[in-house]
């Protein structure tokens, strides 16, 4: 039977026959499996929740619709304001996405941090 690393260390350290069913004996030796240093990049999965946009326009639109029984022709001004706000928000988001360096901004996104780390880490 091939001796897996844990069993091998047990055999070396304690000098007694340890079966896999017995519980581990304290202290358990530390085994360095991954390198003990930080990576030069961070996870880009957690995007960080963006604040809700166009809430005021939405609220105004809702009040208008409620008072007019959801008749859209009456609320055309509010609707166009709401849609304009949304398209502006989308354009801003596109621009922020393209900004790879994030120079001058207080908060950096994870992608921007990665760019910097790649450039300056050794």
């Amino acid at each position, binding site marked *: 039977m091939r001796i897996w690393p844990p069993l091998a260390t047990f055999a070396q350290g304690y000098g007694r026959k340890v079966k896999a069913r017995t519980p581990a004996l304290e202290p358990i030796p530390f085994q360095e499996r991954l390198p003990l240093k930080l990576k030069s990049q961070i996870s880009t999965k957690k995007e960080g929740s963006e*604040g*809700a946009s166009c809430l005021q326009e939405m*609220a105004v*639109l809702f009040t208008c619709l409620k008072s007019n029984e*959801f008749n859209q022709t009456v609320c055309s001004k509010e609707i166009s304001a*709401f849609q304009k706000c949304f398209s502006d928000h989308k354009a801003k988001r596109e621009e922020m996405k393209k900004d790879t360096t994030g120079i001058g901004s207080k908060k950096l996104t994870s992608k921007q941090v990665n760019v910097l780390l790649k450039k300056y880490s050794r």
Partner: protein
Amino acid sequence: MSGMSSLTKLISTLARVSDTKLVLLNHSNVQIISSAKMSQYPKYFIDPTFRNDELNAMYETGEVKEKALVPCRAALTEHTSSEFYSSFTRKFINHVMRKGNKQLAREIVEKAFEVIKKTQIQKFHSLPPEKKVDFAIRDPHELFHQAIINVKPIMVLTPIKRGGVRYQVPVPVDDVQATILAYKWFIEASKDKERTVRFYNKLAKEIMDAANNTGRVVKKKLDLHKQCEANRAYAHYRWN
């Protein structure tokens, strides 16, 4: 460096002429992004111009000389310069199409428009002469356009998960996405019928109702808006 100058020429032409966006990545690299996303063509290929009025305009402004130098995608069979072409309706025909049977989809939609026209003419002739002056027989394409405008939602509910619970949050919707939703609702409503009723008849009825701002599809949109209004509190919790 003749190769370099031709590349810069291409880039400058594209920037001026087509829907491509140019993104400056570094000082030297320029990434050309076309509007189409998944395509067998390279991204810098432009869409064909096939309408006579657009072509004439291009000849007048002299834009045709520049566009002639840029590589162009092939025109699809639906890209005709015919009188009966409607850019608005062809998207709907694509949504009606199943299993790539474009011919059948086109037939259905055209039959539906025929039915719309016939019902209008019938209505017109059944009116007394003094009321005939006020009644206008509208082009079915135009009626369909109006129907879509009446049916497009302004905002939709998206499910957002917070703390293990799925909330329906009202969110603003893109114009294109709203149009696609409208198409879907029309098709759904036209499918929900008795066995003996034909799809194109039901579709014609739905379009005429929607153009009048009544009927089933408009009701669906109104219900969605009402639900959004009922859930407006969730939108305030910074979820967007």
